């Protein structure tokens, strides 16, 4: 290269950066700073948002708030019904969607023949992941609430939510299963393992951390959704805790929306407190999943 000049007079090699290399290095560091700035801005905005919510909720979020039902007087209003409704909803959603999603992903990856039909299914699942949640709400209303007569129950909403997050779980689980090296499967088959033994002992354990990541993302989405719940008839004013999956219920996003849309400023504080509770539930849920994931990947 012409740029690599050699100091002939001293018969020494010049290892200092050439102008060309300096320009390359500048570009590299500009890119690095750009990435860092983007990351930082995301964190800053998240922090601002959190700060504002917590500031609004300050003084309103106390034990009374957690143990009281909603009231027309902001001072007495609490979130108990919505909190328990959300816990019921997310538990049943997980119970339904995780087994179905993982089983579907296993079938598509390990059993189904790759081919046009498989590709078609894959594209359709990816498309379903992009369908607006309100559409799932309408489907849930027609299918579960009215069609099979579950009414405005926890179960109907959980089934609807499961439909909503199934594509996400299936896609994540497929990716995780596909990432399991085929040499592992071959090793198992070569020892006279059946497909199920191979899947059960090697493919699933290896894919588990990835599957759990997908489940976390999917359930995090489900817990914040309000639109499908409005369609399937979650109530806005609930002064009780659901006792069975067939009971009426409300959920945190609905309650928050309800409070936020009222004109009085006090209700806005309640909404902020509700958001903090929602975030804490989400945080607790994710912590459990992360612990599970780490335990799975350590094995």
């Amino acid at each position, binding site marked *: 290269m012409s740029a690599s000049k050699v100091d002939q007079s001293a018969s020494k090699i010049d290892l200092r950066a050439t102008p060309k290399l300096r320009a390359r290095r500048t570009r590299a560091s500009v890119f690095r700073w750009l990435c860092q700035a983007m990351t930082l801005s995301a964190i800053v905005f998240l922090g601002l948002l959190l700060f504002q919510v917590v500031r609004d909720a300050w003084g309103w979020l106390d034990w009374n708030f957690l143990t009281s039902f909603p009231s027309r007087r902001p001072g007495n209003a609490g979130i108990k019904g919505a909190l328990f409704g959300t816990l019921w909803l997310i538990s049943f959603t997980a119970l339904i969607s995780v087994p179905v999603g993982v089983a579907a992903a296993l079938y598509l990856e390990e059993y189904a023949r790759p081919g046009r039909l498989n590709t078609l299914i894959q594209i359709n699942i990816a498309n379903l992941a992009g369908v607006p949640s309100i559409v799932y709400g309408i489907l849930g209303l027609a299918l579960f609430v009215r069609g099979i007569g579950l009414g405005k129950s926890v179960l109907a909403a959980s089934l609807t939510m499961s439909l909503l997050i199934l594509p996400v779980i299936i896609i994540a689980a497929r990716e995780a299963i596909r990432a399991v090296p085929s040499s*592992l499967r071959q090793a198992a088959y070569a020892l006279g393992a059946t497909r199920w033994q191979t899947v059960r002992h090697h493919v699933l354990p290896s894919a588990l951390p990835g599957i759990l990541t997908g489940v976390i993302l999917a359930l995090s989405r489900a817990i914040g959704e309000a639109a499908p719940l409005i369609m399937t008839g979650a109530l806005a004013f609930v002064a009780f805790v659901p006792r069975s999956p067939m009971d009426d219920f409300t959920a945190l996003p609905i309650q928050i929306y309800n409070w936020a849309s009222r004109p009085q400023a006090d209700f806005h504080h309640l909404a902020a407190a509700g958001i903090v509770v929602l975030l804490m539930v989400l945080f607790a849920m994710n912590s459990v999943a992360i612990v599970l994931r780490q335990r799975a990947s350590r094995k």
Partner: protein
Amino acid sequence: MRADSRLGAVASGGQTMSDSEPRSPARAEGSPPGRNAAIEGSVLETRDLVVRYGDTAAVMGVSLAIPERSITAIIGPSGCGKSTLLRTLNRMNDFIPSVSIEGRIYYRGLDLYGSDVDPVEVRRRIGMVFQKPNPFPKSIYRNVAWGPQINGLDTNLPELVESSLRKAALWEEVKDRLREPATSLSGGQQQRLCIARALAMEPEVILMDEPCSALDPVSTAHIEDLMFELKERYTIVIVTHNMQQAARVSDHTAFLEAGQLVEFGDTNRIFTKPEVRRTEEYVTGRFG
């Protein structure tokens, strides 16, 4: 898929070699002559074997009889179909949906692709060691014990694990760390662990697909020594693109080119007085 659609009448479970051996002569008598008369002393035999991936044939009309308790090397340039040939011998190709097979493969006179043959049962008896060491991400002990466990072999597991590791010349190096993950071993040790894992199934045949290509010379020498010991009890088929290795370890050598068997015979003869010119050119390094 194919592997499952061929689930046959052969019972799985605690069955051992002796269960099927009385059956093979009976079947040989009942089959048409010339199709099933196994060559004396051969364990595996291919007859006009054609293996296709979709429309492309990777193996074209190979007839090969693999002698018992010896090492047979399959050599040839990259892409000549040697790995494909090897993988049809224990039905590992069943997992590739586009693969189709013509011709016959006989294992002790039994048609390996017959409708009453369960591929899982086949793989129990014909073990395989792969190009890259592929231990399970579990402990050393579990790696060896898993095969016998899932196959319900009724044995003393710790004893079987020890004897398998001894046979694979790995016991002394790992006896104090059986609970440690197999991935903590070196590449050469991992490959010997994979051999121990295959041996734990007490197979009759061990297929090795370039078992040393990912290893350093010292580990390679280890594995080659091991193969010498193993051939006393097992039939070994090794695919290698290392001609020195084939010359060193094998008793018989098959030279494959473009999916066709060019020459098959005594390793000594193949490397000193080959009958076909292509073989001579290949083993002397003039091409390939």
